[in-house]
């Protein structure tokens, strides 16, 4: 006899289960089945809590007090006024408001040869090869944020780059939330053919003072010898709850460089799953996370080396003011066939606030015997000797701190290849420091 233990469901879980009764119906039998399976998984498992290892430091069951109704479309005039991130970078800009593409604010004209961009809703209605890739990167274990996204997201962008096509102009998907508190879900799919090249940016922003919820997931299918640069900026309003999932499938000899900048939202969880199943690829996942007040941000990475000769690098820099809390969980798995793997992970935190907290949890699981893997973590205040040196030259304390913090996060931002995007990130870090001073 099975004794099923059902924990008491929280109001948020009950509310979400209610939302899951009305799943989107687009996309054909496979997609509908995916949604139903995801909804069932959520109903069975609920929100994760601190006894679930992957969510040890981010007890979503406690942090997510209520479920909000799925958001309705936003007014484009309001959206236009709110969307300001990465606006001057020269990227091709697509706007997603409250989880739905806003065509009148999205630049879909004169697409480069080999580039296809569709709203996901359109792609789902049409079916076809691209949609056949959607949902194929799910990590094969329960992830509440991703399950909710899979079940409830009805729109987003679907992008494909034909084999060999080199898209010079970055694509920027601007996620904006507008209006009253609600939950928005967006699902994006980015498929790069063999030898293709793309710079993809995504940004997240919304109003201050509104306790809205954003759940975004983006799947990246990167075929052999393709090159992908990903840049993310998350500056949600201070009361928002932001959950995002990044899924990568990496072929052989791929170059992948992903960078995340986070300074928004009350609670952030970014989960990243990368499956390296082609040989000799080089991937890096870097981040700069700047938090203040009582903000909480969790970056959890799962890098799965399945085959030989891949290099993976992670560099995460947290700057934690006031009583904010940063979490970095990095797991590198090196499977038995993945000989000659070179994996290195580094997390550094600068604690500016007396009550700030950083939790680091590196995990290495190595089954191959000829690998080089390492990890490191540091936490500390700004070096007093450095501060003294700068101040002894006449630089006031706050300005000296700002210069040193900029230098600290600069090391991570430097990894962004695109000049305009890198400059925009430096500017975002400066803006954060300026607001502090």
């Amino acid at each position: 006899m099975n004794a099923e233990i059902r924990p008491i469901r929280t109001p948020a879980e009950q509310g979400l289960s209610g939302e899951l009764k009305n799943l989107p119906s687009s996309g054909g039998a496979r997609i509908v089945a995916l949604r139903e399976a995801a909804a069932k998984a959520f109903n069975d498992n609920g929100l994760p809590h601190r006894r679930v290892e992957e969510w040890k430091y981010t007890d979503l069951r406690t942090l997510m007090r209520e479920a909000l109704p799925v958001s309705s479309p936003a007014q484009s005039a309001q959206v236009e006024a709110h969307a300001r991130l990465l606006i001057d970078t020269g990227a091709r800009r697509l706007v997603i408001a409250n989880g739905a593409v806003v065509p009148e604010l999205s630049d879909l004209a004169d697409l480069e040869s080999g580039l296809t961009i569709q709203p996901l809703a359109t792609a789902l209605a049409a079916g076809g090869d691209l949609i056949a890739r959607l949902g194929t990167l799910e990590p094969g274990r329960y992830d509440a944020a991703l399950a909710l996204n899979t079940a409830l997201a009805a729109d987003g962008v679907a992008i494909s780059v034909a084999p060999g096509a080199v898209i010079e102009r970055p694509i920027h998907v601007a996620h904006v939330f507008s209006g009253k508190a609600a939950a928005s879900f967006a699902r994006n799919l980015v498929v790069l053919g063999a030898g293709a090249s793309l710079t993809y940016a995504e940004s997240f922003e919304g109003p201050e003072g509104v306790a809205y919820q954003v759940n975004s997931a983006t799947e990246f299918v990167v075929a052999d010898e393709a090159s992908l640069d990903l840049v993310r900026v998350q500056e949600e309003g201070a009361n928002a709850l932001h959950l995002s999932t990044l899924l990568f499938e990496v072929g052989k000899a791929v170059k992948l460089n992903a960078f995340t900048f986070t300074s928004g939202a009350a609670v952030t969880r970014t989960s990243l799953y990368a499956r390296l199943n082609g040989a000799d690829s080089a991937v890096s996942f870097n981040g700069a996370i700047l938090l203040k007040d009582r903000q909480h941000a969790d970056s959890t990475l799962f890098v799965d080396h399945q085959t030989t000769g891949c290099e993976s690098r992670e560099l995460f820099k947290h700057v934690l003011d006031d009583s904010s809390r940063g979490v970095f969980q990095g797991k590198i798995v090196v499977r038995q066939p993945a000989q000659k793997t070179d994996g290195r992970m580094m997390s550094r935190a600068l604690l500016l606030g007396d009550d700030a907290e950083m939790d680091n949890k590196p995990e290495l699981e190595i089954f191959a015997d000829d690998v080089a893997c390492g990890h490191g973590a540091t936490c500390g205040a700004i070096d007093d000797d450095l501060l003294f040196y700068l101040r002894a030259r006449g630089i006031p304390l706050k300005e000296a701190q700002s210069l040193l913090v900029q230098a600290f996060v600069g090391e991570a931002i430097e990894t962004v290849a695109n000049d305009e995007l890198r400059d925009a990130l430096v500017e975002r870090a400066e803006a954060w420091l300026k607001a502090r001073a």
Partner: protein
Amino acid sequence: MAMLDIDNLHAKIEGEDGKEILKGLSLKVNPGEVHAIMGPNGSGKSTLSYILAGKDDYEVTEGTVTLNGEDLLDMEIDERAAKGVFLAFQYPIEVPGVATMTFLRSALNAQRKKRGEEEISTPDFLRLVREKAAGLGISQDMLKRGVNVGFSGGEKKRAEILQMAILEPKIAILDETDSGLDIDALKIVSEGVNALRSPERGMIVITHYQRLLNHIVPDFVHVMHKGRIVRSGGKELALELEANGYAEYQQDAA
């Protein structure tokens, strides 16, 4: 009134059981004067320089320090710099990620701002740095790098002198600027310092060896021992110390 007036300065390492390092040190520096402070290791020379610059690790228990009549010890570190105090560090610190040019400009403008002066324009700043850097053999590449990052010992000391040349302090304290320098580097650094001697500027040159004083010829030489100045004289005192060593003072104190 002396420009810098140190009177009966007592200081200890911060904390309850902090060891007393300066035990009644007095020194007056007038504009245009170069004072050398010599002494054996552990006599408190570097502590004096840190206390003048405002480092937090020390506590002044007695005595006063004034700069042009103002209480120096009451000022924040950066305020002292704006008032004209400059410490050339014995071990200049590497500041990765802060480009030397950014650092110099931030420092110069912060000081100007504090003094109620206008910020320097970009072309004027670049001209100033180029001119001063050339004289010290500092390349454009070094200026683009992080402050002192990857610099050799000699390059670090030259970079300190460059900072001093740009910031134009009223009172410069050179803490063992000769340490770690070979003879060529010593010459370049000394020439840089000599170029900054002026009737308006006072200097305190702290050194263990007389060698530096062949290049930077002081007006006065003081011997420091156990936290006090135990003897003062002209530049010939340095030669005497070189010949006889510090043993005499160490025995006296024993």
